[in-house]
């Protein structure tokens, strides 16, 4: 799995924990988020957070396609890297 930006990883952990109403420390970044009760409404909200914070447009299925904090962070880091390279 490629590296993710530590700030992005921390930010994602806080956002997800906020949506689920759990302390960030309780989230195992390698565990599937559905274990913590993530549903489609949380998933959509998280996508909105991501779009607002990064300007990336993401599909609402993102948290199912990349089901852990680690996977989400790595995927977003990669998307941001591609955007930078593309000069976008």
């Amino acid at each position, binding site marked *: 799995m490629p590296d993710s930006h530590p700030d992005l990883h921390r930010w994602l952990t806080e956002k997800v924990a906020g949506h*689920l*109403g*759990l302390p960030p420390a309780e989230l195992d970044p390698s565990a*599937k988020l*559905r*274990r*913590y*009760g*993530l*549903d*489609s*409404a949380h*998933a*959509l*909200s998280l*996508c*909105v957070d991501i779009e607002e914070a990064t300007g990336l447009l993401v599909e*609402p*299925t993102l948290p*199912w396609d990349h*089901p852990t904090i680690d996977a989400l962070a790595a995927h977003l880091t990669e998307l941001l890297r591609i955007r930078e390279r593309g000069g976008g």
Partner: protein
Amino acid sequence: MSDFVTYLRERLRDDRAFVFLRDDLEEERLTFTELDRRARAVAVWLTGLGMADRPVLLLYPAGLDFTVAFLGCLYARALAVPAPLPQAGGQHADRVRALLADSGAALVLTDAAHASALTEMAHASEPAAPPVHAVPPIRRGGAEAADPPVRDGAGAADPDAWSPPAMSGDTIAYLQYTSGSTSEPRGVEVSHRGLLHNLGLFRELAGAVPPRRIAGWLPHYHDMGLVGLQLQALHTGADLVLMSPNAFVARPVRWLEAISRYRADWTVAPDFGYSWCTRRITDAECAGLDLSSLTMALSGAEPINPGTLDAFARKFAPAGFRPTTWNPGYGLAECTLMVTCTPRGLGPTVRRFAPDGLERRRAVPSADGVPLVACGSPTGLDLRIVDPDTLAPLPDGGIGEIQVAGPSVAAGYRGRPDATRATFRTGDDGRWLRTGDLGFLLDGRLYVTGRLKDVIIVRGRNLHPHDLEEAARAAHPASGRGVAFGVVRRGSGEHVVLVQEVRRGREGHAGEMADRILDRLTGRFGVPVSVVVVGHGEVRQTTSGKLRRRHMRDLLLRGGLTPVHTELEPALKDLLPASP
């Protein structure tokens, strides 16, 4: 007055409109007279195709195109069948195939953006699938043109060529597919008489002053979105401000901003909608809201949590929300929509009842008991509570099945005489709808306490255990028989639990199987699921092979199962004392 079309057309006015707020916040607006004109054109075209008395499946995204197509069907006396727009490979694709087969739809209508994808989807799976048409039609030669060139189909039809088809109160207006699983869909036949009667009950909730402007986001294929928002607005002569369910879920403040900005006085949502606002709207967003225009906030379609009403009222009091605005209610598609609801201005009635009494099916008021929200008093419909086993009527405070009789009760399930007879019971004492819901009457008010039927309700959406069980069985080769049911937690509502057998000799795969099942179920249904894996033979059936879901739930809650593996969502961590 016997049919909705005549009723509506006698009251058409140009100073009332449907406004759809697109996700980019642009407004689309059609006045009632313009909706009527477009609906007549669609009806002329449908009539020309011979669609009178035939089912027409409506697969639309949120927006005004649906309303035009739906009214067009009513105006042509075709049976409208509203359903969710499927996405390729998504959760609704199977459902659409099942609805096509069950309703016998002769035609599929959608909007211009989805026509080709739906044609492909329909004909890939079923070569004999009915034709898919875009209504309003795809514009040729410049979508920006104010008056596009002559088109074929519904776009070329002359609205003035429309003449009202013969209709009576018994004519079926549309089919509401809210009940029934994917494999056994049930289309509730809503008649014009039933619709007008139920809309009349709705209208009476407002008292002397009819609602002026309704705002909401519920989907049009949901009975509360269709009847409670769209048809109610048309019937009572109120503006309707609509947005898509996704726009609401993504940014719930948009709903309350629409109420503020348009000065709406009436809204409708399930408990989930109000609790989502309380959880997700920030104080900064709240500061810009003015909810003082709102005099009616209906809550229904799922159990009402008193905590939701309190928390919402507290959070939005600074924005002008008043607790008397609440209108808790109860209903189901088999009664068109509404059975009972609290009228305007009274505010909610919340009483506390002893928990052990509720378990023994007896409502005993108790100062430190469980709070329950009253759903209003029966008016315009007959309501009784009966013992589910003996069917004997119960006195006040006795908990039993809620049964309803009256003009709002639907004609039945289309093409399913057995299911119709089982649910709509005709006897010496009249024709009574067995709601499958449990509740009691006290001091003239209805309280809903639970359910006899197996359906699980999450965020106002009906989930059918059979659909969950089938998806689980198909998710992994080690997966055997399973039962799905709901477990209620105070404060967080209903949670889906699956008790799943692992096949003999495959016990070593239990963890992997559970993982695969949860991926499949959470992805497809979008709700959290807990799974309890048990050994072969632990899931009980009746002698006739029917799954005993309630029995299995009782066993689980009593600690009577020996799980091989469990995956519980946080809200259900208490379910098994020794869970890892």
